[in-house]
């Protein structure tokens, strides 16, 4: 009898695994569990645990077409996979346009300013929330989450508070993150910066993942052998990830504060000449000595490829590179890679996207658009997407799920960093990208030796002042 129960539990466990990974549909799962003799209550509990409890078929919008604009950062694959499921479950035809960040922002800008938006739901990058949500171009979603959220949606409890503040709530009147009006639902992926390192090389050298920036530099020095670079970074001139991943992670963990004053009081002043700012850049300059000779042209893709090819011992980078790095088909170091929180306070910049409904979307499509958003930001879709494509989730239940961590061991570390990640101070003004790019251009001068760290920081600081003055954030 016990043996029978064990077998039944084992089969149920396998089915839950299949359900979570999307191999088995919700209907098939219910049928299978019924055959195994589980009660309706037990099946309901399992569905809730697997994050698909709210997958009730709501066909009120059957026959409608919802056009969505999403980022082509891996999210589009999971969306594409599930378009038939959305059709089957809700009867809604989803027309997806997927674009890289730059073109997406251009398209978003054109659409929200047109008389009628071509898209019923749009993904918004955190750094552009102030420009687009702050511009009053999105509908509040409070009434939707209050009255139309599917069962088991678990909003807001399942989302890190910081992420909700960043790509969820916005105070349009005072032009700042937070407040009580919800404009976006965090998703379709989040992310922050973690330390990727080679477990085998660290073990061989008798090192542990660094917990201070001094230890980071020492490890880079020690691990810098002929075939492998001691460390790496995104050092390509003007690359925003250089500023966000490499410089800002050092800066915040060295105790840096980026700005003083506030845009509202028009005394918003950069602190790029502060000791922490210069020290962070100087640390990068030191690290270049123990990096690949070509590191100064490394962008996100080249850095990821070099790490996957086994040419890098460690690097700070967006946690979302786990997909290619942990995939044995694209990585030589899939089984040798470890993930750790950034040295120091374990803090990094907050990344992520939110999905919302433009104010000028067709009125008759808005409820259907919400149904699609609710599905694409559900536990069910997020788990499917994370397991299949390893983009970073936004929900706590995905980051810290034991079942998910058994398959993707880096998740809980990424989740820890994500939970306490910091919103970039300048993300609340529309000039964010310009400021980051300007700093990344000046910082590259220090990295290639044509300026000292202090000179580069001073130049970046001066540029920021002129941009902030032009934008009316500084008198």
């Amino acid at each position, binding site marked *: 009898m016990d043996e029978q129960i064990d077998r039944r539990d084992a089969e149920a466990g396998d089915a839950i695994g299949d359900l979570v990974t999307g191999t088995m549909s919700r209907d098939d799962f219910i049928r299978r569990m019924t055959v195994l003799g589980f009660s309706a209550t037990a099946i309901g509990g399992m569905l809730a645990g697997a994050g698909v409890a709210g997958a009730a078929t709501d066909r009120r919008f059957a026959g409608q077409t919802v056009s969505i604009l999403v980022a082509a950062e891996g999210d589009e694959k999971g969306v594409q996979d599930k378009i038939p499921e959305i059709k089957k479950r809700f009867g809604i035809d989803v027309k997806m346009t997927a674009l890289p960040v*730059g073109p997406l922002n251009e398209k978003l800008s054109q659409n929200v300013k047109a008389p009628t938006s071509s898209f019923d739901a749009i993904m918004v990058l955190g750094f552009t929330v102030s420009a687009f949500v702050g511009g009053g171009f999105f509908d509040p979603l409070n009434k939707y989450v209050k009255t139309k959220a599917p069962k088991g949606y678990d909003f807001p409890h399942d989302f890190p508070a910081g992420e909700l503040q960043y790509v969820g709530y916005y105070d349009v009147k005072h032009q700042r993150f937070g407040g009580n009006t919800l404009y976006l639902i965090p998703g379709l992926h989040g992310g922050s910066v973690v330390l990727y390192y080679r477990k085998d090389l660290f073990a061989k050298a008798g090192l542990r993942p660094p917990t201070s920036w001094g230890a980071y530099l020492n490890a880079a020095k020690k691990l810098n052998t002929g075939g492998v670079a001691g460390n790496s970074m995104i050092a390509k001139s003007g690359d925003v990830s250089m500023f966000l991943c490499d410089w800002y992670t050092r800066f915040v963990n060295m105790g840096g504060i980026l700005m003083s004053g506030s845009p509202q009081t028009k005394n918003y002043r950069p602190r790029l000449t502060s000791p922490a700012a210069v020290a962070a850049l100087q640390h990068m300059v030191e690290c270049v000595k123990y990096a690949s*000779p070509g590191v100064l042209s490394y962008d996100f893709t080249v850095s990821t490829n070099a790490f996957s090819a086994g040419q890098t011992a460690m690097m700070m980078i967006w946690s979302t590179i786990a997909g290619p790095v942990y995939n044995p088909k694209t990585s030589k170091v899939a089984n040798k890679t470890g993930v750790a929180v950034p040295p120091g306070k374990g803090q990094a910049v907050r990344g992520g996207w939110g999905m919302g409904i433009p104010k000028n979307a067709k009125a008759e499509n808005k409820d259907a658009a919400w149904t699609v958003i609710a599905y694409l930001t559900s536990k069910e879709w997020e788990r499917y997407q994370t397991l299949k494509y390893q983009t970073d989730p936004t929900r706590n239940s995905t980051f810290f799920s034991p079942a998910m961590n058994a398959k993707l061991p880096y998740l809980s570390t990424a989740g820890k960093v994500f939970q306490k990640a910091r919103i970039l101070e300048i993300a609340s003004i529309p000039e964010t990208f310009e400021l980051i790019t300007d700093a990344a251009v*000046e910082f590259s001068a220090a990295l290639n030796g044509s300026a000292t760290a202090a000179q580069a920081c001073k130049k970046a600081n001066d540029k920021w002042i002129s941009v902030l003055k032009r934008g009316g954030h500084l008198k």
Partner: protein
Amino acid sequence: MAATAGDAGRIRSGRARLPTQGRGEVLLLLGPCAVYLAAFSIFPLVTSLVRSFQDYNTQADSWRWVGLDNYSQLIHSSEFWTVVENTVLLTVVGVTIQVVLGTALALFFNQQLRGASIVRGILILPMLLTPIVVGLMWRALLDPNWGLLNWIFVQIGVGQVGWLSDPSVALWTLVVVDSWQWTPFVFVIVYARLQALPQEVFEAGSVDGASWFQRTVYLTLPLLAPAIVFAAVFRAIDAFRTFDLVYGLTNGGPGTSTTTLSFQAFQNGFEFQHYGYASAISYVMVIAAAIGITLLFKVVKVRRLETTA
């Protein structure tokens, strides 16, 4: 019915109308072209001129009149002058290399060598590629870790070169890549003209005892001048507005060492949504290009008049 001498005079003066032509026909024939020009050339030109005197507020989605502020900012920005210098260097050096090499190749292939037709075909392949693909392809070739070029340099003991990461090398890398792609264009134009040159002139030169060098310098090159000038002007306009190669290869870096005016306009307009400033940059480009081309054509005209006189 034959046209009279008076009709011919009117036709020559450009004010004539054929007897069968009505106002409707004129509108029908010229209308689409006029509408097209108005919609896609005149309207954007006027709008961007107006925008260059305004500043856009993303949050309020509104435009504010700032007068000459954008132009003043440009002129007082040291970065702008670096960008102008990069653009001029890329245009002048790049086009000079392309004209010299393209003409030399045309003269070489005019020798009717065996197998020349096959080599000619291969030679023009680079210009069939889009510049963004060329940029990405060369980025792979110049990759510091697995790029072919650095591998060769390491094998012969020169060591790695920061083709794209060294600020003193990156712009010259751009010139080389641009020349690789566009020398074939000059070659095709000059070679086509070369094929059409009257052979009697060269035969007369040979009879008079002129050497190959003398025939080339005193006969071929002067006769080729219109084609060379055409190719140079065409390439100069194209090089002056280089964007995609920079975007694919260097993204304007390191620092601003390879940023061109087009790239700066793109960055300000589409990445920073600083549309007024971007329009001002574009207008500076339009004015500079108009002055440059007018001067160039004036020089060519003067030289042609001198030649005919």
